[in-house]
């Protein structure tokens, strides 16, 4: 254990050195992996409410996702236990996250990217919810408060990213950290239970070289720095939603 701590300390130290060194050569290469390895998400004290001091977000480098994000989706399934609904038709199945293939009609250039809740600053799903169940947490995470969700699915209609799905059938043996049940809408919640513990979301862990996760409010955070360097595109930027999930290479 102690030995591991030492290694971890050394690794972090070397990583930070690497980060400093990489700043000099930013023109030649993209430094996503260096930054993401830092894992700079600090644990909030469990008894303190979240504040708007931070806004969580991530930058996904699509060019580094060799599988188009399938591993990220698989990690999400594993973490939250969705995707094995037995009685739902294919069109009704849960999709907290999915791989979307995009092809340019003119050039036939094609790539895939994982699409999940984009955690908008101004979420349309929150605007339309009649009960307040679709909500944005103070730290920018958009989620469904299933305790007061009545299953009207208005948010599913409002979401421009088709990020939400509805549970059509009774479920059993859900994950203790991720309750989900019939009659409620669900979507990516950026693994709130992990973030509150200071851990990275499951999909970020599954693709450490391609995704940087961090605080968008902090200009010095790895994710902010990476976006400053390479830019981060929003899907449907024309809607002006200021999404928390950004992409590079689309």
């Amino acid at each position: 254990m102690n030995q591991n701590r030492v290694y971890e300390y050394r690794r972090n130290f070397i990583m930070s050195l690497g980060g400093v060194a990489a700043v000099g050569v930013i023109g030649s290469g993209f430094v996503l992996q260096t930054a993401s390895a830092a894992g700079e998400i600090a644990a909030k004290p469990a008894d303190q409410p979240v504040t708007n001091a931070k806004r969580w977000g991530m930058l996904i480098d699509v060019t580094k996702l060799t599988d188009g994000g399938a591993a990220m989706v698989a990690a999400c399934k594993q973490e939250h236990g969705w995707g094995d609904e037995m009685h739902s038709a294919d069109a009704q199945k849960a999709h907290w996250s999915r791989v979307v293939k995009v092809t340019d009609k003119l050039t036939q250039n094609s790539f895939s990217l994982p699409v999940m809740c984009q955690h908008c600053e101004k979420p349309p799903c929150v605007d339309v919810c009649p009960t307040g169940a679709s909500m944005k947490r103070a730290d920018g995470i958009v989620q469904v408060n299933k305790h007061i969700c009545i299953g009207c699915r208005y948010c599913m209609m409002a979401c421009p990213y088709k990020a939400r799905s509805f549970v059509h059938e009774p479920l059993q043996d859900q994950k203790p950290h991720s309750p989900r049940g019939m009659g409620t809408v669900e979507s990516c919640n950026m693994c709130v239970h992990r973030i509150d513990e200071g851990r990275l979301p499951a999909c970020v862990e599954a693709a450490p070289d391609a995704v940087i996760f961090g605080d968008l409010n902090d200009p010095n955070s790895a994710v902010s720095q990476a976006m400053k360097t390479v830019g981060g595109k929003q899907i449907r930027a024309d809607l002006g939603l200021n999404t928390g999930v950004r992409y590079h290479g689309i």
Partner: protein
Amino acid sequence: MTSKLSSVFLAATLAFATLLAGCGKAPMEADLNLATAKAKSEQCVEPENVIRTKHMDLLMHKRDATVIEGIRTTQHSLKECINCHVSTTKQDGTPLHYGDKEHFCTTCHVAVGQKIDCFQCHADRPQIDQDPNYQHTVGSAAGHHFTQGVTAAAAPTVAEIKMVAQPQQGAAK
């Protein structure tokens, strides 16, 4: 007028008495192996009488604090109730769910005829594969309030269990 009032009062008293008599049919303390439970009750987050009368309020308050504000303390957390009080399997080794009479929550909720909605979404038993160190200290399999006693006492009828749990169709498949 007075007679009307008194007759109403009498009816109410009778109804209450019937209710009490109904409670009398519940397993007596002597039938139940309460030693473990009593020893462990001091480790619970609140005194037993507070938990019995107020657990729903505590859980209601806690759920909003958790979902909206991200306060994830173990105090009054449903997950911790389950971890501590519910066994993962029945005594014959099959998975234990809230529709079963051995389930910690169901034992009481059957007796008072109160439906539980929590477990339509929440996990109704600890997941050892997720967390091998779950706090299974009280452990119904080790002899808790009703799990030992209920087998000896009159078991709740199928209708009673259905009323409480109401497993949705397809859940058992």
